[in-house]
């Protein structure tokens, strides 16, 4: 996280700060929560904003997720994954819940209808802004096949279900799920090696 070595690491370091803080928060330590907040707020807000798009709704969802992290930290088990993965799983799930909720999905359907399906290249190229991690993740995504990248981006950044993606891309459902999995496995392997 804070190390000068910015390699993307898949294997969680047992002693990473977020995992350690989360364990402390799990014992009711409010000061540790404040410290944890400063480590993770950008990740949580960033991924929710990416999915939800609307800043004020994203802020609302971020607040909910942060309080959920506090409530549920008692059940965090470092043996089952890193603190970062635990936090990001919760944040992304809540962001997707927001865009899939009834009202939002009606609005979204209208917007999506007018949108081109081939959003993948835009997603990759629109960010000229240089954030090292972001650039590396985007770079890794460009090394996937088009279909792997599109299915992952539509699911993760847009919150579409695999069925919606199959429909949008006019692909069999079986193809969508295998492309997602193949793509993530390639990303995992690339991150392990170091970008």
């Amino acid at each position, binding site marked *: 996280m804070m190390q000068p070595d910015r390699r*993307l690491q898949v294997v*969680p370091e047992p002693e990473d700060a977020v995992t350690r803080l989360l364990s402390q928060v*799990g014992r*009711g330590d*409010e000061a540790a*929560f*404040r410290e944890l*907040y400063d480590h993770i*707020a950008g*990740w949580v*807000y*960033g*991924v929710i904003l*990416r999915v939800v798009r609307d*800043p004020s709704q994203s*802020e609302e*969802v*971020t*607040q*909910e997720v942060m309080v*959920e992290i*506090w*409530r*549920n930290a008692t*059940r965090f088990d470092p043996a089952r*994954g*890193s603190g*970062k*993965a635990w*936090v*990001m799983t*919760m944040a992304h*799930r809540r962001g*997707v*819940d*927001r865009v*899939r*909720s009834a009202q939002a999905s009606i609005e979204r359907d209208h917007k999506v209808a007018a949108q081109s399906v081939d959003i993948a290249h835009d997603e990759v190229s629109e960010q000229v802004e240089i954030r090292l*991690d*972001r650039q590396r*993740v*985007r770079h890794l*995504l460009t090394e996937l096949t088009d279909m792997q990248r599109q299915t*992952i981006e539509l*699911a*993760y950044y847009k*919150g579409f*279900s*695999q069925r919606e*993606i199959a429909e949008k891309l006019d692909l069999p459902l*079986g193809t969508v*799920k*295998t492309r997602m*999995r193949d*793509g*993530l*496995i390639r*990303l*995992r392997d690339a*991150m392990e090696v170091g970008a």
Partner: protein
Amino acid sequence: MSTEDLHLLTGAYVLDSLDDLERVAFERHLADCEDCRNEVHELRETVAQIGAAETTPPPSALRQSVFAEVARTAQLPPHVAPVTSQRTRRWTQGLAVAAVAVLAFGLGTVVTDRSAEQTVVAQEDQLTQIVSAPDAVMAAMKMKGDARSKVIVSPSQGKAVMVGAGIAAPTNNMVYQVWLVDDNGGKHGMSTFEPNADGTAEMVVNADFSNIAAVAVTVEPVGGSKQPTSDPVGVAALGEQI
């Protein structure tokens, strides 16, 4: 869905790209499949990197607002003895509550006093049976906020399963309670539940559904109520199938 197909769902699962029913089916598979659990664990780390790369500083006012809410929010009790997978524990808890509710309200079939482990196995079989029963009907539950839920009822089996996502944790000392609303508008209190950490919830209800018109959920004090003390946060009319 065949087991082979389920193995391929790890990617869609960690991307939150499964719908609620697919997710519940896959999570049941996860409890039994170590290979998939390991793959999910690894891919979650991968996906967390994709997500964290989106880092954006939140509005600065959020910090104090979160801390203020945290200061007045109680933490959940830790899970007791990690005997088995979390998924299995949830089922155990859900079933225990359901059984208590059925006994307390004298509704429908009384769940027999099998041991917890046997019950869990039976429970998982039950879910498959309910969902695949020829007379199973599915109804969407309209809920407040981001929550969504589906109810699948098999009257011939006297069972229903409710799966939900996006369900906010109830406030301190409150829980969600399931109600069956009969054709005459009578409300029958069933199990209480709390959503899982990720906002998901699953609940099996055993009852005679022959005269049940709707399934509702209210927020009640811990322990549940004999009659609802608040307006429902969700209602599924069993006539309105999806």
